[in-house]
């Protein structure tokens, strides 16, 4: 089964208080110039179908519980992929009165793509790295974390890309 699904990737998007800039660039992945469906990847409508949850924004008070519920509802194994500086906890609103320290930090993202917003190419590279991290989680026989906390403890640490490079990032992910 693992090899049958090797090239597919279900992506579910979760905005945790972003400015919508990252969403504009995420949407570009569906246009004729970047068309991720060529790679067998797709934006899916349910966390049950998802392998990767992309998260944006600094995390708002109001989204904290809803976002944890979404991660909880995601089938395992899965990877949380942070998109943008805000998700990395380095955006303009990190630590604002109703904002947290970054969606990918709070939700224990495996990888974070930096940028304000990152370009569609950078996001694609991040997804590629997420797919690689995901296949390692599958191959190792790990059932995947049941709770976001376990993602941090057992499988990965947040990798902050200053200059996104897909190959370097996947190497770092394997060494963690």
């Amino acid at each position, binding site marked *: 089964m693992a090899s049958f699904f090797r090239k597919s990737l279900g992506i579910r*998007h*979760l*905005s*945790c*208080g*972003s*400015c*919508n*800039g*990252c*969403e*504009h*660039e*995420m*949407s*570009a992945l*569906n*246009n*004729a*110039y970047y068309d991720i469906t060529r790679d067998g990847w797709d*934006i899916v*409508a*349910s966390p049950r179908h998802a392998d990767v949850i992309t998260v944006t*924004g*600094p995390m*708002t*008070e*109001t*989204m*904290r*519980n*809803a*976002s944890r*519920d*979404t991660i909880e509802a995601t089938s395992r194994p899965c990877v949380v992929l942070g998109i943008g500086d805000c998700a990395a906890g380095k*955006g*303009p*609103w990190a630590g*604002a*009165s*109703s*904002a947290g320290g970054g969606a990918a930090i709070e939700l224990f993202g495996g990888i974070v793509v930096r940028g*304000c*917003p990152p*370009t569609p190419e950078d996001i694609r590279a991040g997804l590629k790295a997420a797919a690689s991290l995901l296949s390692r989680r599958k191959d190792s026989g790990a059932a995947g974390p049941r709770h976001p906390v376990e993602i941090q403890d057992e499988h990965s640490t947040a990798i902050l890309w200053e200059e996104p490079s897909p190959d370097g990032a996947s190497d770092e992910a394997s060494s963690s």
Partner: protein
Amino acid sequence: MSERLIAECRSAIPLGAYGSEHASYYLFLSSSGAYAISTELGATREAPSLAETFPLFGWDEREMQDEWAVRMLNLPDARPLRAQNGVMPEAVLANGTGVMHAVVGPVHAGIIEPGRFTFSSGGETVVHLDAQLSYAHRGVEQKLAGMPVLDAAPFVARICGGCSASRSFSYARALETLAAVEIDPGVDLARLVVAELERLYNHLADLAASAAAAGSGPGFARGMAVKERAMRLCQLASGHRLLFDAIVPGGVSAPTLRDIPPVLADLSALRTAVESYLDKLFANVSLVARWHGAGIVDHATAQAFGAVGPAQRASKGQVDIRTFVPYGAYRSIPARAAYASAGDAFARCRVKRDEIRESFRLIGEALRQLETTPRPAAKTINVPAGFSIGVTEGPRGTETVAVHVDKTGRLERIHVISASYRNWPIVARAMDGNIVPDFPLVNKSFNLCYACVDR
């Protein structure tokens, strides 16, 4: 005091209202510009609500109550506007035999922002929709308070991605009015190009999304392709695909429109592609038929809720800030505003189509003038203490930024009233009597932001 405000509401265009530690502010726009009427709150912090007579203040006054503990008297809907301690107030439901309730959100099945929509419907027909946002509330205005005005500019540009340039423009205008600086003609022209590029990529995305919501795959695919080309044009013109930081207080950023000929060449190629797209989109009878009659907003509703931008001009409204109080290069290159009267999704799409064509004309004209007009670097401006309002016409309508600057040149208070903030309550009203599956269609014909509403 409220008599004066009511009289003002009848003679000028109300922009919105907000509170601060000591006072309430009601903002208006007349043909001579924007102004505020402030009222000291006093020890009781009581203030009469205007929302009963002018529903457009409903959200503003609820926000004053939430954020500044203003005790609004006779507020028709006194629920908190935003979630309190992470808990959203109860939604307003319509009840009756056969009426069902469905809650959608805050997490949605697409690449969009968070919000909660509670539908009360009898069968397929929507009886009432309560749209509750604030899931993207970060505490922007609180974070900006105390920041030096120029340091705050990149933050202001990042309040909302889709209307970043218009907000930066409004912020710059507010500070420049206060500092009484003259802006060079070349800078005015460059700012016009940036503002119209923002309108262009947003409207293209809106039309593509409206086509998708009506089930047109090609309308969506081709629309998103031309939107991508528009974003690449933004990159070429300003160094950023979403025009972040292109407009700064005192001028425009260094990379903005340094080299004109390549931008003109790309603009011309994109114009041809977009014309072909628009012709095919609007010639598709089965698609356009879905837009007709969906989400009707009549003129009275649009007026009462203070609709702005294409939402207002598609419902017999006449206000376009570019023509109502021309600013910057719109004084020398007058914009031609687009209007429609039916108030349905088709009318809104038609207004946006006409505005896309007008944006191409304006950008082309400004770029040609820029070829012979020097575009100097941004000036350093010294902003004295005081109060000022900046208003521009963004893609979704009037973008208002009010600033209170203290003696040390820091923001004492900044308040943002976005076009989406004005229009959201109207989206909910536009759904009355429509069927639930048409929500995406009605919603996307407005295509409003959440981040600048929630802040």
